[in-house]
C-alpha cells in the first residue's frame, strides 16, 4: 500500500532562516507528487507539483522541491522563510494513472511550521 512519511511534525524557525521539510513515500510505480499548504483559516492550496521532467520543481511563494527517485523523497525547501509562511504543509502522492482510474491522494501527517518574526 502507498504511504507518505513527513518526518517533521512541528518546526519553529525565525524569519530569514532556511527551511527544509522532509517527505518520503512508498510506492513502486510511477507517481505524481504534491505539496499542499493550509494557511490559518484557509483551505488547502497547491504549493507545487511534480509529474515528470526536471526533478527540481519550483512552486509559488519561493518554494521548491526536489524529487529524488532513488530515495523515494520529495523534500520541500525555501531559502528564507517569512512570518507569512506560518502554516501547515502536507506532502501527497498519487499514482500516475490516467483516464478515469482513481487518483486518490495519499497524504502525510502534515508539518506545522511556525515562523517567528
Amino acid at each position, binding site marked *: 500500500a502507498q504511504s*507518505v512519511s513527513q518526518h517533521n511534525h512541528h518546526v519553529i524557525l525565525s524569519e530569514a532562516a532556511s527551511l527544509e521539510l522532509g517527505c518520503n513515500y512508498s510506492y513502486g510505480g510511477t507517481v*505524481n507528487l*504534491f505539496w*499542499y499548504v493550509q494557511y490559518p483559516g*484557509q*483551505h*488547502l*492550496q*497547491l504549493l507545487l*507539483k511534480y*509529474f*515528470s521532467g526536471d526533478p527540481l520543481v519550483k512552486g509559488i511563494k519561493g518554494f521548491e522541491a526536489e524529487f529524488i527517485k532513488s530515495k523515494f523523497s520529495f523534500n520541500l525547501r525555501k531559502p528564507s522563510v517569512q512570518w507569512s509562511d506560518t502554516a501547515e504543509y*502536507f506532502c*501527497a502522492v*498519487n499514482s*500516475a*494513472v*490516467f*483516464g*478515469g*482510474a*482513481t*487518483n*486518490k*491522494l*495519499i*497524504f*502525510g*501527517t*502534515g508539518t506545522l511550521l511556525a515562523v517567528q518574526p
Partner: protein
Amino acid sequence: EAGVTQFPSHSVIEKGQTVTLRCDPISGHDNLYWYRRVMGKEIKFLLHFVKESKQDESGMPNNRFLAERTGGTYSTLKVQPAELEDSGVYFCASSQVALRGWDNEQFFGPGTRLTVL
C-alpha cells in the same frame, strides 16, 4: 472561476443524530473526492466519484456513511447515525479527468468541521 465550495462550514451534533455535508465541485470537473482528517492524523481518502458513478469507495469507514452525486454535479455525504469518532474535518476536492499529467491536480474546498458530542 468559482472554487470548490462546501456546506456547512461547521456542524455540531449529538451522537446518534444524522448530518449531511454538501460539496459543489468546480464546474466541468468530473472527478469529485471526499477526504477526512481526524484531529492529529493525516488526511485520509474516503471515496471518489467520476460524474455520478462511484469509482472507488475503499476509504469509507463503514455503512453509516453514504455518499451520493446525483446528476454528476454536487455531492452529499451523509453520516447516520453519527458516532464520536466521526468528528473531524471533511474535505471535498475536484479535478478534471486526468488524460494527461497536468490534469491530475485536485482542488480542495474549505472543509466542513464536524463535531459529534
